[in-house]
């Protein structure tokens, strides 16, 4: 695959150019956490591409936590602007991959998700310094973008070394080709070394792989009604809201003047009323059933449906957990 080098003195110009075409978001480290912030000329551009994924997951860009999806009785068309996500990480790309399958993979295609996806260009960055909460390697992911993204770059002393994964990515490289310089052998070697180091670090953090038949083990535990109830769970739902692959939502209607607005809101399967029907029957009235449903959904059901696990290994769930429950331990022990 062909690589393209953007020297350090050109990065700001490149970002400025892109931000003229659409709003651009990049990771900035602040008070111990990385956040995606919107680039604007008036503020200093202080990216941090070396840190792990941002504190917030990126599903908000495609599937906002609160989104008007219809108006009644007369619907209208809502426009979305073009956007660049510059420097996102591969775990979050896995989240987008899962959402692509749900919202665009089977009929009907979700028009709101699709429009945002079509209008958002994803430029991912290598993740050279995985932290203890990271476990993307257990899900078969690399600590760098190699699918789903339009472009991926590795941060090197010589600049940002890009590779393109889509036609859109090629078009960006083409449009700004004057900015890129020739790639040297040493640059590619440096990239290789950074990636190897990151992979080694990940395998030290998570030296024990998940068992190959993890979905079958989840299914077997379910059939045996073995649910790791985890009394510590306080049902704060942080794990689910922070999760880049969770896609549950609820449609709620609100009166707005004479019209009704139908709003799509993130939902989570830990709510007691989540699956309750009008007549009162509830398939998961107990917390152990709901707690386990999360595992069944991600590691059994989604695998049956789409032949992939609906987890990205981003570690947000275990960092966000009020009770310090580590999803890895539950899966390792199955």
């Amino acid at each position, binding site marked *: 695959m062909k690589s393209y080098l953007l020297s350090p003195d050109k990065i700001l110009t490149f970002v400025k150019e892109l931000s003229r075409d659409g709003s651009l978001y990049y990771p900035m480290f602040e008070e111990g956490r990385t956040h995606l912030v919107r680039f604007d000329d008036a503020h200093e551009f202080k990216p941090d591409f070396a840190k792990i994924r941002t504190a917030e997951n990126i599903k908000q860009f495609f599937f906002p936590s609160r989104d008007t*999806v*219809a*108006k*009644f*009785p007369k*619907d209208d068309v809502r426009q979305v602007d073009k956007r660049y996500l510059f420097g996102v990480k591969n775990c979050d790309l896995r989240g987008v991959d899962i959402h692509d399958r*749900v*919202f665009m993979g*089977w*009929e*009907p*295609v*979700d*028009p709101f998700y*699709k429009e945002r996806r079509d209008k958002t260009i994803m430029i991912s960055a290598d993740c050279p310094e995985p932290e203890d909460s990271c476990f993307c390697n257990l899900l078969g992911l690399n600590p760098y973008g190699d699918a789903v993204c339009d472009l991926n770059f590795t941060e090197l002393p010589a600049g940002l070394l890009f590779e393109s994964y889509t036609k859109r990515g090629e078009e960006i490289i083409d449009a700004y080709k004057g900015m890129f310089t020739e790639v040297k052998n040493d640059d590619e070697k440096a990239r290789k070394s950074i990636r190897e180091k990151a992979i080694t670090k990940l395998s030290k953090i998570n030296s024990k792989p998940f068992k190959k038949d993890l979905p079958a083990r989840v299914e077997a535990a379910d*059939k045996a*009604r073995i649910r790791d109830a985890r009394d510590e769970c306080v049902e704060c739902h942080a794990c689910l809201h922070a999760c880049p692959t969770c*896609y*549950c*939502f*609820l*449609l*709620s*209607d*609100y*009166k707005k003047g004479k019209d*009704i607005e*139908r709003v*799509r809101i993130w*939902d989570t*399967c830990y709510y007691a009323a*989540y*699956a*309750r*029907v*009008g*007549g*009162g*029957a*509830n*398939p998961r009235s107990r917390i152990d059933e709901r707690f386990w449903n999360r595992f069944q*959904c991600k590691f*059994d*059901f989604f695998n*049956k*449906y789409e032949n992939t696990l609906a987890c990205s290994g981003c570690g947000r769930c275990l960092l966000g957990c009020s009770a310090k429950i580590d999803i890895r331990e539950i899966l390792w022990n199955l």
Partner: protein
Amino acid sequence: MEPINPYYPIPVKIKEIIPETPNITTFILDGKPFDFEAGQFAELTIPSVGEAPFTPSSSPYDDHMEFTIMKVGRVTDALFNMKEGDLVGVRGPFGKPYPLQNFKGKEVFIVGGGVGFAPLRSLFLALLHDLKNYKKVYIRYGARTPQDIVYKRLIPEWQKIDRVDLLMTVDVGDESWKGRVGVVTVILDKIPVDVKTSPSVVCGPPLMMKFSTQRLVEVGFKHENIYLSMEKNMSCGVGKCNHCRVGKFYVCKDGPVLTWQDVKDIEEPFL
């Protein structure tokens, strides 16, 4: 072509309201917002209150759409306050219908409980439309009391139809009731069909579905021939919001009609 908005409900007026029982009412819409097949469901929007899933109770061949609905919660409470001429919204059709092609030339054995007769009426009317295609249609229906029987105004006519065999029972009778008394399984004591080949269809409250299905399995219906209308909390209707997932199915998209073969490994599938 731009994808259409699957969350937008088509506005339609309520044309007629027919109370069936003290807490079950049939709402006849002014027209048919979309075509559907028996067993497919729709999301009914009550403006500014919300929406809930219901299966039409009218024939797919009619030029209007009907829903027979029990008053159970927030959305249905609001619906029961509506009047003829009021505007509601409808989305659909969602999910897979009853596979009528598998019923051809066979005896169709239908078991219903309470308001579960609503989707079964749609199925029954679809079968009546081409009755010559089926050997015989059996209906076994149970309600709590004689007062709670839905379609009292229609049942006597249905019972007169050749090749239709309709029996009823009530959990608790009264002086006027001359028929069987007991839960629906009391009229499943004798099942006069060829259980090896016949399809059976069950719809009703969770316990009724559980015990009726047990009985059908016991007398030898094939697991893949027992069709169950699964009641789950469908919000989006299009296999995205995840609320109705049970086992490996999105009930809204892969159901709502699933077979006992599909769901028998699920713990308490009817809950």
